[in-house]
């Protein structure tokens, strides 16, 4: 089972690399924030998988913290940081 966990974790990591390209592309700050939220969720999944593959239970706690921080970051962005409407929006 452990090798499957590592394989899926690597696949999710490859997903994140692709999403990184999209985050650099933009075009609006909201799109970049959505990438950050995807990073939070995928990072949670990767950490949980690594914990099951032999990393130990502490990684599950880290995954919980990452999930919480992604939520707080998203809310802070929507309520506090996103003020301007970008002109280029397709």
């Amino acid at each position, binding site marked *: *089972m452990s090798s*499957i*966990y590592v394989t*899926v974790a690597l*696949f*999710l990591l490859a*997903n994140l690399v*692709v*999403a990184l390209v*999209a985050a650099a592309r933009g075009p*609006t700050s*909201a*799109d970049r*924030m*959505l*990438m950050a*939220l*995807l990073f939070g*969720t*995928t990072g*949670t*999944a990767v950490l*949980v*998988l690594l914990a*099951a593959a032999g990393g130990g*239970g502490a990684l*599950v706690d880290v*995954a*919980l913290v990452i*999930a*919480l921080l*992604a*939520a707080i970051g*998203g*809310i802070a*962005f*929507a*309520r506090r940081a*996103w003020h*301007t*409407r970008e002109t280029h*929006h*397709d």
Partner: protein
Amino acid sequence: MTDALGTGLLIVGAFFFFAGTVGLLRFPDVYSRLHALAKADNLGLGCVLLALAIDADTLEAALKLLLIWPLVLAASACVSFAIARRADTLGIAPWEKKDGR
């Protein structure tokens, strides 16, 4: 039996993460990208956590894994609502299919 079930759930979860990433790359506006992100959040992580909970050693470890899912569900719903309402307040119009294409 549980191994096969766990592997299947892992593959389904990885597929939903992949679909969410592709949706974020390909969808035209912020509202539809929120929709794509929700797939990765809710179903992708849910399937992965369920697969790991099936394979967990103790009941406590399994419940702790399954506890992450409702947290992410609630957070995803709140963040999606906040971002969509902010985008609407800023006057970003939802994408519509152009005529004649």
